[in-house]
């Protein structure tokens, strides 16, 4: 299936994805309402954008007590009418890709099939295409790049 994948070696940590995401969904700019969050390590100079990977087993979907999280039209969706803000999804996501804002779960909806973070990433660190399960964590990526580049904290 089509999913967003990350090339951490290319991410410049500019967080334009956060701005574009929040603007697309709310017409305002705020990291708090962005469905993507960039993890930054200034000591190592490494950065990693975290967002929903559309995992086939989606633990948050399974954990949601009100069935607010579903898979529709090629992406995970959150029904805010049904969401009670219990945070079970936040706990269950393996990639810290779910956050609560104003008592509602925020998850990437792939912008209806044209993810704006991918379109606007200035370094091509994000890709949206047919891809197998994407299971790399930021910490995996940081360890790999530290080794590859000879960078040690």
């Amino acid at each position: 299936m089509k999913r967003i994948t990350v090339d951490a070696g290319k991410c410049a940590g500019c967080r334009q994805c956060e701005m574009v995401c929040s603007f697309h969904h709310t017409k305002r700019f705020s990291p708090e309402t962005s469905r993507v969050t960039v993890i930054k390590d200034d000591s190592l100079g490494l950065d990693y954008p975290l967002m929903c990977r559309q995992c086939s087993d989606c633990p948050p979907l399974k954990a949601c007590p009100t069935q607010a999280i579903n898979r529709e039209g090629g992406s995970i969706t959150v029904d805010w009418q049904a969401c009670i803000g219990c945070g079970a999804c936040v706990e269950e996501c393996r990639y810290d890709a779910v956050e609560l804002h104003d008592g509602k779960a925020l998850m990437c909806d792939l912008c209806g099939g044209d993810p704006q973070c991918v379109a606007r990433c200035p370094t091509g660190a994000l890709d949206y295409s047919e891809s197998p399960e994407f299971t790399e964590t930021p910490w995996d990526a940081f360890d790999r790049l530290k080794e590859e580049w000879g960078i040690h904290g």
Partner: protein
Amino acid sequence: MARVYGYTGSLLRVDLTDQAYRTERINEAEMRGYLGGRGFNAKRLYDEVGAGVDPLGPGNKLIFGTGPLVGTMFPTASRFNVSAKSPHTGIFGDSNAGGHFAPEMKFAGYDQIVLEGRSPSLVYLYVKDDHVEFRDASAMKGRTVFEADGFMKGELGDRRVQTVICGPAAEKGVRYGGLFANQVRAASRTGMGTVMASKNVKALAVRGTGHVEVAEPEEFERLVLKLEREIREHEQYSGRMRMGTTRILMMANEAGFLPTRNYMSGVYEHASMVSGERLAEEYNVKNRGCFACTIPCSRVYSVREGPHRGLHGEGPEYEALGSFTSRIGNDDLEQALKAIDLCNQLGLDVLSVAGCVGWAMELYEAGQLTAEETGGLELTWGNTEALLKLIQLIAEREGFGDVLADGSVEAAERLGRGMDRTIQVKGMDLIMADPRGLKGFGLGYAVASRGGDHLRSEPFLELSDDPEIGERMFGVPESTMRLADRGKGRLVNYFEDWNAVIDSLEPCKNIMQNMMLLPFERVSEVLEVATGLRVTPEEMREAGARIVTLERMFGVREGLSRADDSLPSRFRESPLDEGASSGTVVDLDLMLDEYYAERGWDAATGHPTPGTLQRLGLGFAVADLP
């Protein structure tokens, strides 16, 4: 009043003495008149820090300001200015940095944060939206910038908190201690870190959960998309992505204005060994960027083998790279990287360190400074072991480092010799471009409100050496010829106004000005779409002139006049003897006459006239004229 977007419209005022704080409104007249960041700071500093205030006393104020575009997706809008009376120069102090601190200020709800008074004990401030905590910082006393950053993020348990930190050098009272955001984003000129340390504040940590809204979202998006495309298609795009500003080093060398051995030459014979090209090919591993940047030009480097194996960091930019290579006759790139890293950790301004060390090396080589006086350090050109030692000594104010810790002018006074070899204006050590090869830059250094520095004007168009541009834009063909003196008053006047506007809206000057992307007409359009405020291109230019003139008045109030708008004697009297800028000196008087006339300032005194002050809406400053 109609709603204004973009700005938060709020200022946070923190009284350190009583550990109290309050918010104040920033009104629409201030927004129109002073635009944001640098302009807001200039006005507040002028209003609140009068003549004679001790820069390191509780009467000084440290002001952080950012602009209306910051905290949106506007390309490169990420910067803040931090301003206070400078302990390095005794006049207007101000520095600017990018990274992620400024947008966090906006998300927390502030365009400006003012720190005043002095804390009874060492603290760091934690600003979380509308709440301020004065937190004990005794565990961070004497700690490096990097250590302090890690400490606060751990203690606050929030990886999204953004910090601005002063290093141990500032705590020791070194007068050119900087402030550092994201560890290496340095607002390091004019000693703003030293001011923060004097207030018993180690750091400012900010976290905001709010948002920024623009007046016309669809139109704003259209403008942003167009700008992003223009940046990617620009001829400078690939060079900047690959090398950042370090691409300048080889260009400067070829044009013969690369400061070499404390400006004794404009050509460095080993330039290719310390170039941005070499850094990119052998050391860089990835790009990094400031917030919302379309052209993330910072680079992470890593030294993978040899004695410096494991050394890594971000940057450097051209000024730092040149400072510890050609400026001091050093061809060892890795030692330069190490020295820059050390300055970042200790919280020192690289240009000021290089100004002091370059000066001391010149004296030493000339036999006017002995190893006895330096505590055994052999300050020969290129001796980087001595450089590294000296950086530590400066930060600790120990031995010969103590002599250099107050700046090159104070050092020359203390030694009783070498003043003619200091390369500074108004006490601030110059940047890395020899004005004999860039006459407009020379004028810019001489008149800059914060002392010897290019970022107030940076009239890069003279690098074009194209008389047609000069004729078209300024009516003087020579104005855009780098070795000519004529027309430079008009050129610098224009660029000063433009930079004041860009610095106040707070996108990146490297991109928006040097790549010619935001002329006055477009700034006007952007501001209206973002904020809803209509400020015409003419009013925009006038706001720039207002900011420049008010900063000038800050200096005038402290006693400055035309005689202080000077340049080191070697630039005015001794031509360079090799390279593409040889055989010419700077005719400063000619350029100053032109400049004052363009500005409407008095040619004899260099003071703005009462009429000019009134015309710019600065009537309140007339009473401060001598």
